[in-house]
């Protein structure tokens, strides 16, 4: 029953993403989607296939829910972040928003840990927070690089 929350959340996120006004243009969003899908499927594979830092539940229902979490929820949350951050004016608001965002990201993971979908082994919360933040920063720099190319081609002003 609880797994329904994950399905509902993913559908709501997809709907919200398409209806909200975005700061990144459509090419930047496609770029972000491709990069984030690649990065997160690799990141999760390294965690629970290569090194067994995470153990994922064997229940089929929860396994599908976890797949939705890694393939839809996490990349979409990141895309929300990159689309909202340019709307903020001051540096302080950007810092607060970033901290809040990392909190939301970890909050999702924490719920899955509490529900027994993810079981940590030789892994701690701070490591998740660290890696989520590293990915956040690295993908942002990649986005800046792509934006620079768009600017040279005269497609984007920023």
């Amino acid at each position: 029953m609880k797994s329904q929350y994950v399905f509902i959340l993913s559908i709501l996120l997809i709907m919200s993403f398409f209806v909200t006004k975005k700061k990144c243009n459509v090419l930047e969003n496609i770029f972000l989607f491709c990069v984030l899908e690649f990065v997160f499927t690799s990141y999760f594979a390294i965690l629970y296939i290569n090194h067994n830092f995470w153990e994922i539940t064997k229940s089929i229902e929860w396994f599908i829910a976890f797949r939705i979490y890694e393939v839809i929820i996490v990349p979409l949350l990141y895309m929300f972040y990159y689309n909202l951050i340019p709307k903020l004016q001051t540096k302080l608001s950007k810092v607060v928003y970033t901290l809040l965002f990392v909190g939301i990201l970890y909050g999702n993971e924490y719920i899955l840990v509490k529900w027994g979908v993810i079981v940590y082994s030789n892994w701690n919360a701070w490591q998740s927070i660290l890696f989520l933040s590293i990915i956040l920063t690295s993908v942002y720099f990649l986005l800046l690089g792509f934006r620079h190319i768009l600017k040279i081609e005269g497609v984007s002003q920023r």
Partner: protein
Amino acid sequence: MILPVQFDQNEWFLIVMIILSYTVVFLMPKRIPWSQFILVMLLSVMIARLSDHLLASPSVDLYDINDTGKYDLFDFVTYLLYAPFSYLFIYFYDRFNIRGIGIVLYIVVCSFLGMLFEMTNALFEVFHYKGWSAVYSFSVYLVSQSITLLLFSYIRTAYHTLLRNQNKKWQGSNL
């Protein structure tokens, strides 16, 4: 990332193919802007990674890539190999201005070639099938190549719309 168990035919095959395919791509005349080029290449890498993650990871586990069932360094190299082929697929589509029923034929022919190339990969032990067969990949290629073409058309339209809007803004600011 995990290193290969043994540096043998599959690793050499991937290295040779990567060098050959990227050389061909960079020697060919440029047909699309860099931003579209990057997106087309990324798109194929993402589709390949996503389908392998969903079909080849534990609990589904229909095939293994390279030496182990894990995500090793040469799995990453395998994904880099999809990008130039995706560009060539778009390049010839654009170069020969394929339209109408020709698009269906083009996708069928390219999916068949994709399947043959995958069989060659399997011969060099890049893929180890468990419950999978190269024939199943044919339908996967039909879907993924259709998505690639659809998204390329969308990307190109969006690109020109953005370019037009920027030019209008620029002309407006100069008046």
